[in-house]
């Protein structure tokens, strides 16, 4: 036990000596947190739009106005020639244009079907989807109002039957994007630290040859591994705590759930990450190799984790693959605890999966380690 303490002491001494590493451990993640939360937003505002108005009526004007007053859109031009709108779209002057046909008002009053075409620049397909969604909503809204006013013109006392959709957003009432993003980015930061630092650290001992020097001492492999894992566990916890504090005070993220539970799961998650780093270190002999391999896994873990894309929309085979992605589990758990206040029974299955995954990876790593060194 005392020997483990000496290893831990040595690790911290080395980390504190490393002038390149210290800022990477503490400054970089925090800068990333602050920048990413602001930059990596899925909301799109100020979409440049052009309207081709072939009708030039009061009703078409009113529709155009709707876009003008929307926070999402920036009305650039009202043109009468569809080719001009096409040109603007091609020149990237606008991202979308709508085409209001002639006789728009007439048909509306006659309660006939009117088609408005919407042309979206779909180079960024997700943006295009969102834009058409926004437009659809605005037009539907407009349609409802017109319908109501038309109907009420005819029969003053008879209210038309209409369906009201009443939306309420749970757990993130104002649909605050940051509430969603901060817990996610916190997970990225912890993942970076956990996988990279541990993988690089052990490979470094190999590179310098100190691992061999340690192997001829009575120091057990188990003691060595624990001595290596604990410092990074501590750093990971510290990192997460700082990030959480920033989230709480700089971004006003509500932390609904139990911190005790959150940290409990975080320890399991860190343990899994360190096992991944450790496994990578047993498969590589130089820091360069380890870095590239770690990078490969990081990309897979993060992109498939559901941070940027909803997990439900990825294909079935990828969802199965995600069963061995520790980041996906913790991302989900982290958001559930922080935003939703989930308790252990809600997340028990995911926590157990994460734990089992960690045990499996650690065993693989220990097996490889015993075989090679």
């Amino acid at each position, binding site marked *: 036990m005392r020997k483990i303490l000496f290893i831990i002491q040595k690790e911290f001494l080395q980390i504190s000596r490393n002038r390149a590493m210290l800022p990477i451990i503490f400054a970089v993640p925090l800068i990333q947190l602050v920048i990413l939360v602001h930059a990596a937003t899925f909301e799109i505002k100020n979409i440049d739009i052009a309207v081709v108005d072939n009708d030039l009526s009061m009703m078409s004007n009113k529709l155009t106005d709707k876009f003008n007053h929307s926070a999402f859109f920036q009305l650039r031009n009202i043109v009468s020639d569809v080719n001009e709108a096409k040109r603007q779209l091609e020149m990237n002057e606008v991202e979308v244009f709508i085409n209001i046909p002639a006789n728009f008002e007439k048909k509306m009053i006659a309660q006939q079907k009117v088609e408005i075409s919407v042309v979206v620049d779909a180079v960024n397909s997700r943006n295009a989807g969102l834009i058409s969604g926004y437009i659809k909503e605005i037009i539907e809204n407009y349609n409802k109002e017109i319908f109501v006013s038309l109907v009420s013109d005819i029969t003053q006392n008879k209210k038309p039957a209409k369906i009201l959709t009443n939306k309420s957003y749970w757990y993130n009432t104002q649909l605050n994007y940051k509430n969603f993003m901060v817990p996610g980015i916190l997970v990225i930061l912890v993942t970076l630290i956990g996988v990279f630092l541990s993988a690089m650290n052990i490979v470094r001992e190999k590179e*310098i*040859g100190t691992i*061999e020097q340690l192997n*001829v001492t009575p120091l057990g492999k188990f003691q060595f591994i624990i001595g290596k894992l604990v410092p990074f566990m501590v750093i990971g916890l510290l990192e997460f705590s700082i990030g959480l504090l920033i989230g709480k005070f700089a971004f006003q993220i509500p932390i609904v759930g139990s911190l005790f539970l959150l940290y409990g799961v975080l320890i399991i998650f860190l343990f899994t990450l360190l096992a991944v780093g450790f496994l990578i270190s047993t498969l590589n002999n130089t820091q360069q190799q380890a870095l590239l391999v770690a990078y490969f896994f990081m990309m897979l873990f993060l992109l498939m984790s559901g941070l940027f894309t909803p997990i439900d929309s990825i294909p079935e085979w990828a969802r199965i693959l995600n069963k061995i992605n520790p980041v996906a589990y913790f991302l989900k758990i982290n958001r559930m605890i922080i935003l939703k206040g989930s308790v252990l029974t809600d997340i028990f299955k995911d926590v157990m999966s994460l734990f089992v995954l960690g045990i499996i990876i650690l065993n693989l790593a220990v097996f490889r380690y015993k075989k090679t060194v």
Partner: protein
Amino acid sequence: MKSIIVKNVSKKYKQAQALDNISVVVEKGEIFGLIGPDGAGKTSLMRILSTLILPTSGEAYLEGLNCARDYKKIRKIIGYMPGKFSLYHDLSVEENLNFFASVFGTTVRENYDLVKLIYAQIEPFKKRRAGKLSGGMKQKLALSCALIHYPKVLILDEPTTGVDAVSRKEFWQILKTLKERGITILVSTPYMDEAELCDRVGLIQGGKMMSVNLPSEIIKEFHHELFALTSENNYRLMKHLKERTNPHDVQIFGQNIHLINRKAKLSIEVLKQDLINNGFPNISISKIQPGIEDCFIELMRGTSD
């Protein structure tokens, strides 16, 4: 009392046969030198004895403990110094020493009288990072760390490679005093002159133990006449001699060319006259006693033919 016993040990890597049926015995408190060219198998043998790798076949014992089975016990009683400096570059001299002491479950103070001899020389730099030390000081630090738990057996893999002549001399001086403390020392070196400083030497080549003997006995085994020749153009002389004799019978030794005469006795006068006639007017020839290096080259020649 036997300290190290190696019995028919072979080590085969995927491609190469690093050790081929090696057997050797090292007495307690002996300085045993493993001499051989690069790739001879010195490091493989030392790594087997240090419990870092397992032999493919055969058995090795250290202080009566089996290197494969009792590796845990062996690790408590050996000090191993690999050929490459493998301490923590970013820790200071003092921190390295303290760390290795604690890993062995001891303290620097406990065995200070043993390491003092060496450590005293680097103690003025104890706050310096190990990575910033000179080659000789690095060796001394590495040796201090290998000695910090008062090992019974010290295994040193090419400890003087890349170290200056003065430091090398000091290093061997230290080994002598460690020997007096009863520590068995197994040391490998590519330098022939260091062989003479060992109690016994083993010549290893191509994974085989060629000869194990006292340095003085190895010299006695050299039965041929040996001449040292020098002229104003040694290169041409060398070429000339190689054409006349078996090419393995001539070797360049610094300023001289050593000529081994395997045939009937040769008189210096006859040889001199012959060379003067062949265009070496300022030739000087003398009959010399073989050094250990001559013997090793002769032994190695025997296998490569």
